[in-house]
């Protein structure tokens, strides 16, 4: 099982490694500024580096073991992930309005569920090719696979992660062959569901956050305050930025949750338009490279895995950057590889390992 084919070393994807390394390095450098204490590394910085080490080990494991073996473990992993979320729901204390942490707040099972979800969906679509998924009712099973974790996460009141999980699952909809009028029906249903959600399910503070996107001046001290301060931080960066560790919005702490949700604002303030574009450019390149990997994969499972990994990176990045830029409501979605957060980093690196795995084995068989 751990036998590594010589060809997979010859075909090692240096581009992918370079992209990942560059983004991880940028994320750490930026986090150092965002957690900015004047004397050495902050506690957050140390914990992030430890997570990086753990994530590196995990990535190595996910890259080295031939990905076709993972197919067998997809369902068990899915069940374990669901159980962990369920356990969290029972035993974990309510922190910051949600109930999503295990082991004294160190592990977020919903993050782990992403890997399991990608594996499970890849396994499903490998057995039921998307090309043959032509009717809405064909989506029943994959729908259920997505709905189970999403439902549990909603019960945890962690709306951001629930939405993310839903979107990651929805990534595979790009592949199915369902006619346009069916989607129209889905869209109508979705609008109705959203309306119902707005009326019955969303708490007033969540509605405020959504409204604050439309009009940031609306509630300057709550969510609108975050959006406004983020816009000020980004805008004051200008073309070339205020300089590393010199952004006043960051250093003087006007920017809220700057080392987690608004880490990108720190980058934009201190590195300016050029730095932001380079970073987002690297990000986009990584995502497109992931798709290239999917396209060059020698089997369907590998392609489906790669697409799943791209989805896992794309959706949080989109939600986070859109939020930071004031284009989307403030939902606590971290920016992969930039926001502080151990579980997210470890899981992201595991997924990237998986992507590397698929890439390395494109010529193996």
């Amino acid at each position, binding site marked *: 099982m751990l036998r590594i084919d010589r060809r997979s070393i010859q075909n090692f994807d240096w581009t992918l490694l370079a992209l990942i390394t560059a983004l991880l390095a940028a994320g750490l450098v930026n986090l150092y500024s965002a957690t900015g204490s004047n004397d050495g590394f902050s506690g957050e910085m140390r914990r992030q580096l430890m997570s990086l080490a753990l994530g590196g080990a995990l990535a190595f494991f996910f890259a080295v073991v031939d990905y076709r073996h993972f197919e067998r473990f997809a369902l068990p992993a899915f069940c374990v992930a669901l159980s962990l979320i369920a356990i969290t729901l029972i035993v974990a204390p309510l922190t910051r309005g949600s109930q999503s942490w295990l082991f004294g707040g160190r592990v977020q099972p919903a993050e782990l569920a992403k890997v399991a979800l990608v594996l499970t969906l890849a396994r499903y679509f490998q057995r039921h090719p998307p090309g043959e998924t032509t009717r809405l009712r064909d989506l029943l099973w994959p729908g259920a696979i997505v709905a189970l974790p999403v439902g549990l996460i909603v019960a945890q009141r962690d709306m951001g992660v629930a939405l993310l999980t839903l979107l990651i699952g929805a990534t595979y909809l790009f592949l199915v062959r369902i006619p346009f009028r069916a989607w129209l029906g889905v869209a109508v249903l979705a609008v109705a569901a959203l309306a119902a959600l707005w009326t019955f399910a969303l708490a007033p503070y969540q509605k405020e956050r959504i409204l604050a996107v439309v009009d940031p001046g609306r509630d300057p001290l709550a969510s609108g305050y975050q959006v406004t301060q983020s816009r000020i931080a980004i805008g004051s960066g*200008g073309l070339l930025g205020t300089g590393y560790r010199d952004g006043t919005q960051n250093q003087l702490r006007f920017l809220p949750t700057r080392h987690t949700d608004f880490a990108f604002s720190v980058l*934009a303030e201190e590195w300016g338009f050029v730095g932001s574009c380079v970073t987002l450019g690297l990000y986009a390149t990584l995502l497109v490279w992931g798709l290239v990997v*999917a396209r060059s994969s020698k089997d*369907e499972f590998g392609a489906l895995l790669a*697409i799943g990994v791209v989805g896992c990176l794309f959706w949080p990045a989109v939600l986070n950057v859109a939020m930071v830029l004031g284009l989307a409501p403030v939902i606590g979605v971290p920016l992969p590889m930039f926001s502080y957060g151990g579980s997210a980093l470890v899981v992201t690196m595991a997924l990237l390992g998986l992507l590397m795995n698929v890439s390395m084995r494109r010529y193996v068989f």
Partner: protein
Amino acid sequence: MIGPDQRLGGGESLIHGRIPWIAAFILLVFAVFFARLFQLQVIQTDDLRLRSVRNSVRTLPIEAPRGDILDRDGRILATTRPAFGVQLIPNDVRHPETVLPVLAQLLDRDPDQLREEIGTPHGRLRFQPIRLAGDLSFDSLTRVESHLYALSGVVTDVRPRRHYVGGELASHVLGFIGEVSGSQLSSSRYADYRQGDVIGQAGVEQLEEEALRGLAGGRNQIVDVAGRVVGVIDEIAPVRGGSVQLTLDLDLQQAAEDAFLPDVLGERTRIGAAVALDVHTGDVLALVSKPSFDPNSFAGGIDAETWKQLTTDRWKPIQNRAISGQYPPGSTYKALVAAAGLADGVIDPERRIFCPGYTRVNGRTYRCWKRGGHGSVDLHKALVESCDVYFYEVGKELGVDRLAFFANGFNLGRLTGIRLPQEMPGLVPTRAWKERRFHEPWVPGETISASIGQGFNLTTPLQLAVAYGAIANGGTLMRPRLLLRVADSEGRLVDGPPPEVLGTVPVSREHLALVRSALEGVVNELHGTGARARVPGVRVAGKTGTAQVVGLKHTEGLDEDEIAFEHRDHAWFVGFAPANAPEIVVAAVVEHGGHGGSAAGPIVQKVLARYFEKRAVQQVPSQVAMRDFEVDLAAH
């Protein structure tokens, strides 16, 4: 479509087909992000950078020290001194349980009271300094400073604080300062002031606000989101205000103030006012109003209790009686009536009138103050002995309107125009005035009262000083001048009003000389009423006056001690010296002081005595200097 190869099934080729679309979708989303970044970081960057600066830069105004107010010799009456304060920043206090008791001991405060004052601030309030002391003594400051190493979170600061060197001295001239009020802020005069600014609210502080205020500085500080100062960008130092030099003479002012002190320890300070003027320039050499107040109590913001006490006190300590206290002039008026009579020709110096101790007008009897009468009196004796009957007759012959013409001619009933707020014009009654005011005709008896300065007549001490100054200097009414020179903060002259003539009295120099000689008799002759104003070696002239507060029937036949204090007469004395070549005129009124000669005379006497004592001393050194100069010349 579906190939034979398992691994390259139709599904996979479909996936292959869809991947470019997914890539396009991803790139489209990122394109939107790039556009948004361009909008924020390139197009709106100036605006947003400004808002970032506004977030983190706070301008802390630095109060300018107010300029000095000086006496005519350059001695400081009001200045600005540093006041040392102690502040505590709750967040920076590391061991409250040790810091607070130590601090309390150093500040001589009760620890519990201190703890209560600090409270338990939360959030950003933890970074806001709390002022625990505003004006520490130097001893306390050194004690706190030497313990600062153990007092985490405690900082000392220094601010300018107004200081009136003489305490209550000249408080009505200097005025006081206070926070600018809402209604003042909305007026154009205070357009460039902000809430919380301190401005002159009375006296010279108010009038010369513009010269004294200086230019506030500012410090641009960098603050973090909690409002904690983390750095200073730059600082513009404040500019001290210009100085205002007054015509007051500190020595004379002090003498006049002291003259109101009781003769016997424990008695209350006399109530009233005194004004000393230079007869040639109109310079106000001293201006006293009693009771007075200590403007220092306003300097750090007056506490409500003290303010209430000052404003509700029945003797009105804030009022400047010298310019706004209106009293019947009583017998001091006689000098003006005499001058009017001479000028109008109704009397001449030789004319004698018989005083039997009373006169009768329309069936009513008007008494002379001397029961038995003065017998046959001429002008000189009438003034020296203050014979009422003589002036009843002069007044009767002049008539009230003629009398008023001359009174107005001496600037009575009119503002003197001294540059102090709240001056009152007094009152000179005429027939027309009474008709207008009471819709009643003038009755002859009222002329009788008016001719000895009773009845409707009202004057301020300042007006009488100006009028007597004209008698003294040969007929020129000088506008009282309080401001000698105003200099800006670099010492450049900004304003230096020259002496100003108000007018000339409608009485000839010869007639005024006759009045002056009679007034010298008042002080120096055997039966004169003003003997208490004599100054050894100086020829003093003057006139006593007693202004009735209530009708005679309340006080008739009673000794002064038996009359209720507030029913006692006001006492006047107006004097000038030297009689042959007058330089200074002093008017004094003592409310409820009884007879003018005994209550007000000594006040004028003390001011004149100080004036001539000082002049004698000043002349000696100048002669010495002259001699030295000659020696110098000889040496060369």
